[in-house]
């Protein structure tokens, strides 16, 4: 469509973005519109307050989706993680893994949990995540016992923290491709 192309040209590095993330031009344009709509002060980037403006997010216990400032490519990259896995796209063994591959999706989630970015989910971080997802009535001891059990189940090398590999192994049975995909981002 003509409008798509003209808007596409306004977006910097659109071609690279499409290549990297696998989004179609229509999607990139749509995401760009959304990005601009979210960026109410026209700063050119998104800061946490802009995410706060999204009313539906207040209903969501997962709050710290993004703490830092986002420009459009990062915005698109984050969303690209949630693209449904494209079974038909030929896998070029030399190219880096698709951004929406299973392990990349898992890595994204892992990074959400692992706030201090040390490559491990410590007990404290897990506690925090659990805290946000559980109702208020759950007491601290209950919370801690849940966290302990959870770590015990996943922690194979007994270092009282969950590394990415342990995380991935514990998620083997879960259908990540399905659970972490937003259909309309196909």
């Amino acid at each position, binding site marked *: 469509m003509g409008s798509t192309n003209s808007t596409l040209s306004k977006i910097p590095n659109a071609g690279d973005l499409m290549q990297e993330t696998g989004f179609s031009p229509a999607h990139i344009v749509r995401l760009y519109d959304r990005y601009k709509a979210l960026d109410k002060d026209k700063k050119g980037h998104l800061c946490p307050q802009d995410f706060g403006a999204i*009313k539906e997010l207040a209903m969501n216990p997962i709050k710290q989706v993004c703490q830092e400032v986002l420009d459009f490519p990062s915005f698109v990259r984050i969303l690209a993680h949630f693209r449904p896995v494209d079974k038909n796209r030929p896998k070029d063994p030399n190219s880096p893994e698709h951004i929406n591959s299973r392990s990349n999706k898992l890595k994204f989630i892992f990074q959400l949990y692992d706030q201090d970015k040390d490559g491990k989910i410590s007990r404290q971080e897990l506690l925090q995540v659990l805290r946000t997802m559980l*109702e208020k009535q759950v007491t601290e001891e209950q919370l801690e016992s849940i966290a302990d059990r959870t770590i015990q189940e996943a922690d194979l090398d007994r270092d009282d923290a969950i590394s990415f590999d342990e995380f991935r192994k514990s998620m083997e049975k879960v259908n990540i491709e399905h659970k972490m995909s*937003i259909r309309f981002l196909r």
Partner: protein
Amino acid sequence: MAPYSQLSFLLTVLLIFGALCVTSKVQIQSSSERQSASSNTGSTGESTSNSSASITTVPIVTWKWHHVETPYLVALWILVCWLCKLMAQLNSKLKSFFPESALLIISGFILGGIVWGADKAQTFKLVPRNFFYFLLPQIILDTGYFMPNKLFFSNLGAILVHAVIGTCWNAAAVGISLWGCYLGGAMGNLQIGLLQFLLFGSLLAAVDPVAVIAVFEEVHVNEVLFIWVFGESLLNDGVTVVLYNVFDAFVSLGGEKINAGEIIKGIVSFFVVAFGGSLIGVVFAILISLLTKYTGKVQIIEAGFIFVLGYLSYLTAEMLSLSAILSVTFCGVCCQKYVNANMDEKSVTAVRYAMKVFANGSETMIFVFLGVTAIDTDIWVWNTGFILLTLLFVLVYRFMGVFFLTWILNRYRLVPIELIDQIVMSFGGLRGAVAYGLAASLDETRIKEKNLMITTTLIVVYFTVILQGLTMKPLVKWLKVKRVSPTELKLIEKVNNRAFEHILAAMEDISGRIGDNWWTRGWKRFEDTYITWFLMKPEARKNRDYLFSIFHKLNLEDAINYVTEAEKRGSLAFLNQTDGTIVNFEKKLRFSGVMPDIMSELDFGNNNVQPTSDTVPSVSLNIHEHEMKRMNEDFNAHHLLQQHLYRSRKNHRHKYSRSNFSINQSEDEVQEIFQRTMRSRLESFKSAKMGVTPAKKITKHPKKDPNHKMSNGKTTDKSKKHPYGDEDFEFSEADSAYSGDGPRRFKLTLSVAGVENPAFIVAPSQGAQRYLPWSPRNLHRLAPLRISDRSTDSFLMADAPATEESSEESPQQPSQRDGTHM
């Protein structure tokens, strides 16, 4: 339940039924007696009071059957129908297998059989007039009132395509095919022409809202599919009415008089009927909303206005020969938001509950009567070819229509509708009582084969409701091949599953899944400024003004400082003020009634599990104490998770249900999450800001949200200033500033799934206060507990400055205990 209790119920019903028949017999007898009495002059009957003969003695008790006959029968029938529903619900084994509507029809068969056995004639039938005027309107009103608006309007295009084009296709295809087969001799000798076939096709074409809901309730489908079928079933009435009337007129005119002019008139009439009906509905919605604006003084009966005006909208459209169903639908759809905002909370609950009672009751009666009506030898005309061919064509053309239209629609959709969904959608094209009503109202002088048509319609209805209803669930299960593994998930998997759902919901919101485009934004703006001004009560509007989204934009430090200053001035001053408005304020700011979309009617079997004792047994003389402890912990942990994990939006998603009505189930949860989010944002904001001491003063802001950058902690909004004396936040000179303070009007709307929330208060509960880990050194003299209360309560902005402080303080004391359900 024990079989004996079921049996006793059955017996009761049958007894009542028998009584019914006997009384009707008595009625027939006595009426014949009456006739004979009047014909034989002078003879008196028994001590029946119906005779015109003179009485010879003072009667102590008389049998006044004919006085109460009609209301008695009506009431008795209603009772019997509802008892049937009760019985249908009692047997859980049967219930899981049969859809309830099928069971009701079967009960209708039984009852009809009894009546027929007693009377040798079907005295109780589903009369079209009663059906259309007394049984149908409340169902449609209920549908419209609880319609998930955002979902509905965002899918309106697809719904209209299916409703209009799909129904026309169905009507034309069935009619023409039947005619073709008739010409081919498959049906033997009938007195039917092409026009009559088309008429028949048009009355069979419409998917029935009553039947669809009844079946889809038991099958959990995704929301897009649901709203498509549901919306289609409602909107196709516009088409059905037009087609029926047009072809009826054509049949009366006769085949010869039909020319292009008439056909054009037919097409025009479609637009008139459809839009006219909708317009009437909208007009009545406006009336209702306006009315509820002023009915604050008659809260007891303000709920009744909805029903009366809704019914009037139906009748008005019917009077003008427009589409009555469309009228009532749009009446409900448009008024729900304003009515919920204007009315008192109790009235809102009353309306909802009453709607459900009426709708459910009517639906029950409709299905039972559909069964009863069948047992009537008068109407049964069997023509194998006609009936079987009709069935076949109805099914086949439904599938074809749906697939074709969906294929077209998929090309314009970002998310294509899958094959499975299309199959379910085609299969869900149930016909119901509306088709029967239309068939029964055919004019038999013009349409000689009326009885055949009625028979066929009944058979189609039974087939779709019973058989397709029966097989719908197994079909869905069979189609969705992917099944969850039966092994118990580990804790970490459970946690992560839920986390995924939340993250997914967050991502969907960020990427603007539903309706974030120019159109919806423009409409929202228009609606916010003009329509709500017109239709909402001033207080309701003011409460809506507390825009949640401004939370992060507003000058939090001003609020904090205001509060700390007020704190400094001593809290007693505020405690003394008890203001009636504050109580009202509190009441209006409830979460529940105005977010119908959030109300989850899904019944989570998991969540009903009562956790066993949560505490690890502290004393155990068991040798294997350690292992037991672990087991208990494990068990408890799983239970805890199951019990207390927040449900994600996917599970919250609105499910329209006629039979379930639950308030507050997930709303507390949602509110909790919301409060937490607000608090954490507040904390993060505070932590970002404390320590910055620009000298500013708080000034009065009328109703505008200051739009200032806050990224570096400095506010660039020059009109707002703080009285930050020094870094200790002393407000010694601030007193004067505060007294001049005006109300800070923050537009605070919570728009979740498109429904604007009148107001929202963040009232921290006792538990939430724990989560304030940060307490600034500078404010050490203020207890953390009180900071957390006040600071967020600063958003309890009342109108007048005088009540502003009091509203902050006093509702917070009593509301602390019930902070979760403000």
